[in-house]
């Protein structure tokens, strides 16, 4: 037993921390969904055993996990909530409104506790809620702190209990059929990837598993029996036989008859209820085998995906440069070569686009993650407000980048709360206005080109412009001359400090005002608009770009400077005769399509010396509900660029949403067309300022080698961490088929196909003379390459990409074994662990030479 066990435990906990929190999130989400489904059982005698069991188990699991990370407060609260649930499960209490509310508040509190623990903040106080739970539990029964003693379900498929019978009935009513499946696992099947989990998923794909039990015969063979309600055609059933999955005939009519006597009247009332039940609850009436994804998915850290995006971004830049340079040289080539070159350039661009799209798709999740959470928010707010809300969700399958989900979750929660608190009237008021008692809140999501549009609409009393005007004047946000209209109301609402009080018991303690919402949208490169009809409705519309990092832009020039303008922002570009521009005081405008179009000259805006032009180009962009024209000198070309954020000190620089590198060292600022009017650009935006910004930006973003850090990929062999320069690693894969090669040293496990090449697979453990261990789920193959060789290295695990600065690397220690010294070129220390840096030259060369092939 190692002496430093505490240290090891701490290490393990630190490493697993992210996983813990991710799992807590999953459990909390599942709880929230299930608790909402439980609404239908308030004050009734009806009882969904499986739903309750699920909730009980989830609290139990939460207790277990939080106990392991030592969040004692969460353990205590989970435990108390479990007590109440136990009463419900044992039918010693009926679910009341208060009870469900308490469960929901309890869940939220646990979420807060975990979050506070994670961010090292002070933990919330749970005394009030503990008190409420005690009252609940006491008021129904006097109990000791015992838990429900565990019960083993029957060990054979029949007889079925009431809930299971009900599930079958429901299914039959919907037109499904009953099946009895038997699966016998075997080594052969396992080798082909067929195991009981795969079989279960397969069955779940065609219906619901009512019951699943293991069985054994006299010889000790094990098989699994499933009772399923669903539909599958005969062809499929025949195919499944090959995978060891058979159907077993059973007299189901008999089964239904014997159990039907007691249940007829219940079925009737359930029919009525079934119609009203929430979609979620319907799913839970049946015994739903847990849907945890098993081997078909990989859980990926978002930061790793960010790295991938960065790499693709660099690729885009380099490709662009290559294209530029090749285009300059093209005229030196004969026609036929020029043609081929064009084709290759095109093909290259297409492939990079595909790659970019592919990686982006990996990051996509359904916006449903946010939408479903809203149900919870609505329940939460309406509890206190006594308002009735009907929440409609449209387009919840719309896929958006995970980052958008993370950034927009809180802002959208805030807007929904606002709608309920300030928009929707009370049921009595609504009745007077001849509106339905239930207020309607509609959340919609849809994609439109490269954008995703999220709408939040309510049929409440609309935006009271007058009240906002009054409040804004009181807070000196606007002066007496300015009036509040739909065009500027959003700017005012989003002004920091506009919304004063936050009702402490409603919010989750994270003061979110409309300004935070706007900020979140801005940072993501999107925009938000509002429309409203007094007394009728309010509609917020948020546009967010799907492609977070790579943008199609037009490069335009103004004077001697160039800027990038996102293509999507531009409605149209027109050529205008300068003589046709009407001047009125400080403003210029032209007549366009029978409407007046104000013109903003970038040269004037940025104090750039204008060049005389016969015609000027005007880009027509949409700003809020109007259009404005932005005058530029020339359009240079269209490009794909990678958006890089402007350094923090320029956050207040109006008019720019970021910057980009054209690949030849030139930096170009990206215009934020929404902010380009004379009022908004403060005078300090002189040309010098713009130039300085660009210079600072370039110096901050010099290529990696100048800052002398190198990216490294870390891998594990046993307990030791090694690092290998990222540049050399071409690919990181899971271990698949290795073809063994006869008569080679044992550290060459064989050969493997990678990216069209056949390369040797070297077992690094053996190479370093460690013990060989079988491959595990974490084992990886690192494909490394130099100009001469490509080799695959088998390691125990490889998870991290870090940057190591040259200064932090020290030569290897004297006491290292000879073999180690040969392969280790340096040692570095990071976060209290030692990383041995591999001498890749040696690894690549020594691996292959000095081998006597017989």
């Amino acid at each position, binding site marked *: 037993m*190692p002496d430093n066990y505490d240290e*090891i435990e701490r290490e393990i906990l630190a490493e697993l921390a992210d996983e*813990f929190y991710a*799992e807590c999130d999953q459990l909390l989400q599942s709880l929230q969904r299930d608790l909402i489904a439980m609404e239908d059982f308030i004050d009734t005698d009806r009882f969904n055993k499986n739903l309750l069991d699920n909730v009980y188990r989830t609290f*139990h699991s939460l207790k277990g*996990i939080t*106990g392991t990370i030592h969040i004692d407060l969460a353990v205590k609260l989970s435990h108390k909530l479990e007590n109440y649930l136990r009463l419900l499960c044992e039918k010693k209490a009926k679910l009341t409104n208060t009870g469900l509310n308490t469960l929901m508040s309890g869940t939220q509190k646990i979420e807060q506790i975990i979050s506070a623990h994670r961010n090292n903040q002070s933990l919330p106080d749970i005394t009030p809620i503990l008190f409420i739970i005690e009252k609940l539990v006491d008021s129904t029964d006097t109990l000791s702190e015992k*838990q429900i003693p*565990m019960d083993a379900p029957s060990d054979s498929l029949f007889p079925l209990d009431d809930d299971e019978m009900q599930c079958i009935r429901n299914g039959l009513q919907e037109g499904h059929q009953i099946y009895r499946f038997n699966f016998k696992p075997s080594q052969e099947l396992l080798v082909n990837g067929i195991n009981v989990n795969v079989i279960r998923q397969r069955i779940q794909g065609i219906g619901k598993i009512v019951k699943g039990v293991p069985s054994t015969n006299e010889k000790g063979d094990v098989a699994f029996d499933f009772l399923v309600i669903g539909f599958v055609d005969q062809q499929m059933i025949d195919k499944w036989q090959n995978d060891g999955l058979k159907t077993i005939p059973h007299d189901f009519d008999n089964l239904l008859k014997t159990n039907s006597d007691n249940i007829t009247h219940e079925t009737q009332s359930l029919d009525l209820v079934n119609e009203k039940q929430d979609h979620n609850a319907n799913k839970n009436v049946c015994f739903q085998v847990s849907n945890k994804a098993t081997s078909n998915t990989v859980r990926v850290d978002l930061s790793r995906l960010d790295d991938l995006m960065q790499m693709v971004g660099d690729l885009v830049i380099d490709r662009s440069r290559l294209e530029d340079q090749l285009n300059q040289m093209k005229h030196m080539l004969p026609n036929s070569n020029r043609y081929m070159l064009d084709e290759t350039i095109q093909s290259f661009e297409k492939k990079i686009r595909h790659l970019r799209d592919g990686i982006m798709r990996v990051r996509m999740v359904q916006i449903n993650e946010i939408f479903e959470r809203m149900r919870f928010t609505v329940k939460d707010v309406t509890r206190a407000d006594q308002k009735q809300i009907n929440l409609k969700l449209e387009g919840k399958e719309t896929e958006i980048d995970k980052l958008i989900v993370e950034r927009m979750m809180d802002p959208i929660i805030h807007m929904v709360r606002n709608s309920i608190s300030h928009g929707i009237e009370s049921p009595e008021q609504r009745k007077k206005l001849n509106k339905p008692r239930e207020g309607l809140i509609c959340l919609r999501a849809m994609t439109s080109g490269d954008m995703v549009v999220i709408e939040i609409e309510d049929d409440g009393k609309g935006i009271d412009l007058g009240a906002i005007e009054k409040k804004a004047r009181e807070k000196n946000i606007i002066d007496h001359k300015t009036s509040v209209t739909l065009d500027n109301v959003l700017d005012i609402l989003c002004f920091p400090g506009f919304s004063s009080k936050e009702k402490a018991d409603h919010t989750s303690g994270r003061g979110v005002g409309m300004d935070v919402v706007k900020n979140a949208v801005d940072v993501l490169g999107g925009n938000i608009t509002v429309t409203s009809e007094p007394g009728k409705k309010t509609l917020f519309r948020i546009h967010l770009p799907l492609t977070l990092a790579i943008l199609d832009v037009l490069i335009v020039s103004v004077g001697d400077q160039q800027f990038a303008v996102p293509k999507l922002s531009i409605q149209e570009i027109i050529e205008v005769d300068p003589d046709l521009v009407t001047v009125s005081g400080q403003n210029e405008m032209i007549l366009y399509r029978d409407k007046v179009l104000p013109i903003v000259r970038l040269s004037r805006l940025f104090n750039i010396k204008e060049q005389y032009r016969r015609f000027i180009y005007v880009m027509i962009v949409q700003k809020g509900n109007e259009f404005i024209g932005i005058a530029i000198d020339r359009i240079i070309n269209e490009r794909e660029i990678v958006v890089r954020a402007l350094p923090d000190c320029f956050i207040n620089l109006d008019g720019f949403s970021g910057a980009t590198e054209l690949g030849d060292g030139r930096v170009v600022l990206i215009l934020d067309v929404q902010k380009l009017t004379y009022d908004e650009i403060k005078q300090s935006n002189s040309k010098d300022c713009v130039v300085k910004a660009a210079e600072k930006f370039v110096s901050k973003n010099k290529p990696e080698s100048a800052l002398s850090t190198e990216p490294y990929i870390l891998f594990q062999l046993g307990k030791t961490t090694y690092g290998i320069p990222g540049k050399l690693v071409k690919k990181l894969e899971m271990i698949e088929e290795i073809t063994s090669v006869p008569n080679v040293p044992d550290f060459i496990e064989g050969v493997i196909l990678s990216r069209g090449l056949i390369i040797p697979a070297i077992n690094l453990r053996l190479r370093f003379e460690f013990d060989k261990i079988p491959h595990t789920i974490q084992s990886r193959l690192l494909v490394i390459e130099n100009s001469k060789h490509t080799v695959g290295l088998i390691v125990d695990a490889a998870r991290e990409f870090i940057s190591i600065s040259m200064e932090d690397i020290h030569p290897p220690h004297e006491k290292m074994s000879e073999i180690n010294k040969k392969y280790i070129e340096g040692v570095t220390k990071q976060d209290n662990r030692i990383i041995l840096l591999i001498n890749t030259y040696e690894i690549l060369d020594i691996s292959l030479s000095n081998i006597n092939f017989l």
Partner: protein
Amino acid sequence: MKTILIVDDSTTMRRMIRATLQTLENISFKEAENGLEAIECLTLNSIDLMTLDLNMPDINGLAVLNFINSHQTLKKIPIIVITARSDEQTRDKVMAAGATQFMKKPLEPQKLLAHVERLLNTLFSEYS
């Protein structure tokens, strides 16, 4: 080389147990996240020890224990039950169903290691 089967529906719990036991020499691991998968794993592989959570969906740990206990060969495998349930009734049922050792959550890594070492060595000495 001994093989340990870790059964728990929580990914993190499995990793934690695995990380704890990985300090032992010559051990390989298998994991299962529900009862059915655990039983399948026991039948298709040669498992020397199993850690079992009780709180799992579909068939719970107790059912798994009962099943194993009624199986001629499988019942010889030492089983350490690791659970958040702390009541006496559960403990009694679990031991009666053939569990070799009962441990409570939150996990105490030292104790787990000690039990595992003891049980695996016993196994070894049976054959020597």
